[in-house]
């Protein structure tokens, strides 16, 4: 099947996914984490009950994979400053304290699982490197904020 035909097949599911599920999430980083966590790491298939009910499991999975790749590429090509902002938005949307989050992500490298399965090696390297720098920057900011608090 050609790429175009494939796209036509998943287009309604893509629209639904963007407008209903992803729109509600605060920023691209949150969307990336959401999509990556909907993927079965053993099979690489994505699951979304609502989407699968309307469009079938296969189409739903393909639409989610396409969205995952699209959002990932946006984050690969956004500036470091924007990525830091995206990451900060994502952290504040979770219930975890920023300090704990940063420590956990830096030590465990949890962001590695957010990479789409069939992405370019260089794109993956750029993303991982930028997230690593963004985490270090946020950690530095966190530390200096804590120091300011103590000295005040």
């Amino acid at each position, binding site marked *: 099947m050609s790429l175009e035909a494939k796209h036509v097949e998943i287009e309604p599911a893509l629209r639904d996914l963007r407008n209903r599920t992803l729109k509600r999430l605060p920023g691209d980083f949150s969307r990336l984490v959401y999509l990556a966590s909907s993927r079965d790491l053993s099979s690489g298939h994505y699951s979304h009950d609502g989407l699968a009910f309307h469009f079938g499991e296969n189409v739903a999975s393909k639409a989610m994979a396409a969205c995952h790749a699209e959002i990932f*590429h*946006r984050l*690969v*090509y*956004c*500036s*470091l*400053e*924007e990525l830091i902002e995206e990451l900060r938005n994502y952290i504040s949307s979770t219930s975890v304290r920023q300090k704990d989050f940063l420590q956990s992500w830096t030590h465990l490298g949890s962001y590695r699982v957010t990479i789409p399965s069939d992405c*370019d*090696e*260089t*794109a993956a*390297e*750029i993303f991982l*490197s*930028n997230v*690593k*720098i963004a985490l*270090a*920057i946020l950690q*530095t900011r966190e530390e200096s904020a804590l120091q300011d608090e103590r000295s005040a």
Partner: protein
Amino acid sequence: MSQLLPYLGVASLLLVVAALWARQIFLTRKTRIEVIVPREHQAAGGSTASHGDFGERIFGLEDWHFVSRSMSSEIQEMFLRERAILAISWLRRTRRGASLVMRAHVAAAQQIEDLQLASELKLALSYFLFLILSDVLIGWIWLRGPVRTRKMVSRTLRTVAWLQGAFEQLMARIDPATCKTLRTNLDHRAVRG
């Protein structure tokens, strides 16, 4: 000493041929570059670069300006180290891609009965020049970092991309089947000097 003379003669001859070929490449490159390496770019919007512009993403100054303006020296060092690793990895991947294609071509060429020696020689020379320039570039980045060598990197990348274009064009003529697999992702226009 006299036993070495034939070897020296052959080596000198090869050097002269290589120099003439390189000269021809550099003299004609400006007029042919647009035809040889046309790249499709997809706008991604905002401050983002287009997909596939890995060179622009890696060597772009926007991030460096942000880091150098407002970050500590530790973060700056980390940034430069990370970018150097990325740049070298990208160049090595590109180099590996070209080597794979060349190996495939050599295997295919062994089956061809009426080999065109001149074209094969040109192909081999442009391939070796491509390899040498890629290595020089890797060395520069490794020694001086991606930001300080940016202008030199930009110029060298343009030459490397031209050589890649010449290589692709020759491959397309000599061995169209193998040429189809030549996708090394190196875009000379991706890095503005």
